């Protein structure tokens, strides 16, 4: 049957681009570091795309309303963040990667692994949920003693949000106390992931410049054989959430690529990879990160 071999959901794909992500507890300084890395990459003329956790406009309205009303259970909290991630993934992470660009992500699937499990979801269930996502080229985990990151957050942000403080877990009636316990559980999750997920641990107690030097050196290694695509736009590409710009599927103004895209994404197999395994049998074997 022709329609049987449609590809898409739950399948990962190879990509010629580079995906660099940062992870870590709140207050570990990872966003600052990713920003500096971005500036450095752009300065060298690399086309860089950037995305951050929980920022899909489409899902955001629903998430915000639900959080405000405390309507979420651990399972729906997890799922709604997976929706947010999937929306960004399908529009602004995977397409640039497949087109050969560099994508920087402030938090990736590991944030979900850590937080959702801390909230009581099953670890295997959460991993399966995100199994459509490709592995990053480089995953930086910013590691600092709990007291350091907690105090950084508490200084800069006197009132903690309900979910941020893990108040939904009934850890403590005091938000600050609850936040500390919650961050501790999350940190433990992160620490246990470093090895199996091959994350690169960055000691976040050091100065900003020292950390940045280390990140740049590691990144440069991964870019040694990287060639940006021809005709790539100049540095500083900020991908917006406008689906007309990002989602090629079914858009008539991409007449040249439409057929190809239709073939690759919707119907049958394709084009550049042609895996020998039937499409709906194995989704993990297709995992691949750039060298």
């Amino acid at each position, binding site marked *: 049957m022709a329609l049987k071999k449609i590809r898409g*959901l*739950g399948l990962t794909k190879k990509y010629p681009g580079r995906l660099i992500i940062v992870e870590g507890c709140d207050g570990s300084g990872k966003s600052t570091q990713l920003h500096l890395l971005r500036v450095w990459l752009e300065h060298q003329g690399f086309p860089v795309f950037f995305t951050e956790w929980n920022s899909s406009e489409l899902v955001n309205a629903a998430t915000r309303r639900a959080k405000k009303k405390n309507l979420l259970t651990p399972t*729906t909290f997890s*799922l709604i963040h997976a*929706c947010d991630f999937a929306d960004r993934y*399908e529009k602004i992470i995977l397409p640039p990667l497949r087109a050969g660009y560099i994508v920087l992500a402030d938090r990736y699937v590991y944030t979900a692994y850590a937080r959702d499990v801390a909230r009581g979801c*099953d670890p295997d269930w959460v991993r399966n949920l995100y199994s459509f996502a490709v592995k990053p080229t480089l995953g930086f985990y910013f590691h600092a003693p709990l007291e350091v990151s907690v105090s950084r957050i508490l200084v800069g942000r006197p009132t903690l949000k309900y979910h941020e403080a893990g108040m939904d877990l009934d850890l403590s009636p005091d938000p600050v106390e609850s936040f500390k316990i919650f961050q501790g559980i999350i940190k433990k999750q992160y620490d246990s992931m470093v090895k199996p997920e091959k994350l690169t641990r960055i000691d976040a107690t050091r100065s900003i410049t020292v950390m940045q030097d280390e990140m740049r050196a590691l990144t440069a290694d991964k870019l040694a054989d990287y060639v940006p695509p021809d005709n790539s736009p100049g540095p500083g590409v900020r991908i917006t959430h406008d689906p007309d710009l990002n989602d090629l599927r079914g858009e008539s103004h991409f007449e040249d690529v439409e057929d190809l895209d239709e073939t690759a994404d919707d119907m049958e197999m394709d084009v550049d990879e042609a895996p020998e395994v039937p499409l709906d049998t194995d989704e993990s074997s297709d995992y691949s990160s750039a060298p």
Partner: protein
Amino acid sequence: MPAKDAASAGAPPRYYGKGIPYLKDITLPGKLIVIEGPDGSGRSTQTALLKEWLESSGHAVLNVGLRRSDLVMSAIIEAKKGNLLGKTTLSLLYATDLADQLENRIIPAMRAGFVAIADRYIYTLMARDLVRGAGEEWLEKLFGFAVVPDLIFYLDARPDLLMHRAFAKYGQLDYWESGMDLGASGDMIEGFLRYQTVLRVRYKGLAEKYGFQVLDGSAEPEAIQRRLRKRVEDFFAESRPKGKGKG
């Protein structure tokens, strides 16, 4: 609402997969009956009739269905209007909707001894996603949080019949039900028939795997309802003596 002591009876929830870890030490004296089938198979008619009958025989009944959760529905509706969503995102939004209803409506109702009738459940979502290329194992694990229903009915109908019913009911064919997002065909009629054919194949696969009781959706509504009630009646008769297995 039934008396409080009703909640003391009943078995702990049976989940398909890993389940909901923080909802394992509860008991569910209520029942879950699922009615599955494609659009136009007569599900809502059958659901309404079944509810009426169960209530008249003294059961408290809760009706649930897909796309009824306040959590993500506005996002789904907005997105579907403009076809703005990728497949994985849409799939996960539906899963969120289902999880929300399961935790906030179905499980609480079952805990209170209600019979919950679900007008579609995880199987419709699975069938749709399978047609769109999702991995079977991925879906199976994703919906591992779902409670195993006591009874699953599937109303089977030929695609051409579904097409005529769609015309009669809505005056036109639906974009999604015609597989237009898949580019099934440029022609809507052909798209509808192709998409519904593939969907039916998927439903049949699931029927075997999950033990659906298949009913002929092209029969007279009254005839279908009679069969439905008979099976439900038998099930209640069987499950009455304590300790006897269900489903």
